[in-house]
């Protein structure tokens, strides 16, 4: 049975929930879980202070409600499942390497930051720097699948290196900035300068803005790649599958750097 955490009070401070992961709670009793400190200030606050705990297997952890003060939800997740029936704060699913994290509300900045594997799904909107590296880190997301049903803020997919990001809503400016490789699909309207300084990798935009002059038009050509990728995405998003079925036109760039990346737009 699922371990269920039901919030009792509004969090009096920002919380660090990165200790609440299946592999960390596997051998812990409810009492031990209740004693875990989640504070981010000098004022101590424990799981027991905040949540009513319904004991169960920690392989699946469900938060019955969320809050934009819930930081680090699923941070470092490597197996099992975490469900949040509400919002989450910064660093949701950061550095996760396996398992599944589903957040039904909105999330703050750096959701899926530097994630390396697993599946992260956000039903609401995300803040800036989706999947991006934190300060001083070289790479953003390096594996797994990130599905955002709502819209993303600025610089979504910054320094993406591997894996797939699918954004069903719109995206802010500098989408896929400094992209290294990987695939980034946006079904909504994208802001200015997508793929700014991207080296390799693929961005697919259903509603692209005017592209920078450093992206060169390669026109249309025959390839099995969109059909294969569209079929992979079909279980996740019918809209994405539809986008990949339509004829696509390729722009290569960013010629200001390596120029081996590409932006596909409907032909």
């Amino acid at each position, binding site marked *: 049975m699922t371990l269920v955490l039901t919030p009792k009070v509004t969090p009096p401070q920002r919380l660090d929930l990165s200790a609440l992961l299946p592999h960390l709670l596997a051998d812990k009793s409810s009492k031990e879980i209740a004693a875990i400190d989640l504070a981010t200030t000098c004022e101590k606050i424990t799981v027991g202070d905040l949540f009513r705990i319904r004991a169960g297997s920690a392989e699946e952890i469900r938060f019955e409600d969320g809050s934009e003060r819930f930081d680090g939800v699923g941070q470092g997740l490597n197996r099992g499942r975490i469900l949040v029936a509400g919002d989450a704060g910064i660093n949701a699913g950061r550095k996760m390497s396996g398992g599944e994290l589903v957040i039904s509300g909105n999330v703050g900045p750096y959701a899926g930051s530097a994630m390396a594997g697993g599946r992260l799904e956000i039903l609401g909107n995300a803040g800036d720097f989706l999947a991006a590296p934190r300060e001083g880190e070289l790479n953003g997301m390096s594996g797994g699948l990130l599905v955002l049903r709502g819209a993303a803020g600025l610089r979504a997919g910054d320094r993406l290196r*591997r894996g797939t990001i699918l954004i069903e809503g719109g995206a802010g400016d500098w989408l896929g900035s400094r992209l290294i490789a990987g695939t980034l699909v946006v079904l909504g309207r994208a802001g200015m300068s997508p793929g700014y300084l991207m080296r*390799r990798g693929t961005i697919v935009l259903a509603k692209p803005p005017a592209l920078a002059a450093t992206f060169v038009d390669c026109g249309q050509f025959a390839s099995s*790649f969109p059909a*294969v990728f569209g079929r992979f995405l079909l279980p996740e998003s019918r809209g994405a599958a539809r986008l990949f079925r339509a004829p696509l036109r390729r722009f290569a760039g960013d010629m200001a750097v390596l120029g081996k990346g590409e932006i596909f737009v409907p032909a």
Partner: protein
Amino acid sequence: MRSITKNGVRIDDTFAEAFPMRGTALVITGPNKRWARQAAVTMTGFATSVIGCGCEASIDGEVEARDTPDGRPGMRVLIFAMSSNDLQTQLVNRVGQCVLTSPGSACFADLSAPDVLKIGDLLRYFGDGWQISKKFGDRHFWRIPVMDGEFLCEATTGLTKGAVGGGNLLICGADYERTLRAAEAAVEAMNGVRDAIMPFPGGIVRSGSKVGSKYKALHASTNDAFCPSLRGAVKTALDDDIGCVLEIVIDGLTEAAVANAMRAGLAAIIKLGPRNGARRVSAGNYGGKLGPFHFHLKDLLV
């Protein structure tokens, strides 16, 4: 030789002796059925026997567009060799020279196994730096720019060490016409069996061989015991009512696939009967000491 008679066809109480091989499966797609088939036919050409071709390969069957990874018409191809190294060499040469070159083609792995062979991981260098790697989940593809667009090729394909090569049926008939008709009926039935191929021309070989030769340079030579023209001159295996012998050789990804193909072939030959088809079915073996897989004909009768 002792035999069982089924619908008038004598089934020898003997067995086909088969050997372990390394094998893999691919799905090759094209812009339409014609070009999917063309790429597969070209890739599996000159691949009848490991003795002279380096591998044994053929088309396992057609794959409907809705069942291929890219939604285009496809052909499933099986390829077998005696060692993993031989198979790797043959695979990359054949995909590189015959599939990559074929208009509109794409190449996908169709066998998952812990051991792998490289395809796109080697062919990508043809892209001269413009090749693009794409991963999704545990699948890895290479996109190689070519003059008609892009060649999409899976990075690796599974390698099975449990493949079986050399299952066979010796189809003996009164004359040429009836023997060929029985062999064709058997191949037709065996084509429906998944994971098994008949690598010889149209599935049929007329020059069955024995081990050894009077000439030092040759390891194999004509199977004189089954040559009607040598009856009387050599220790023949043919009865007086047999005027022609054709052989079907089967390779399969599993022992069960070879057995299933032999079973289907035998059933078709028996159904045809001696009046229109074969009078006798036998099988080739080396006394049972060389190959670990023995397919007894009597066990394969439906």
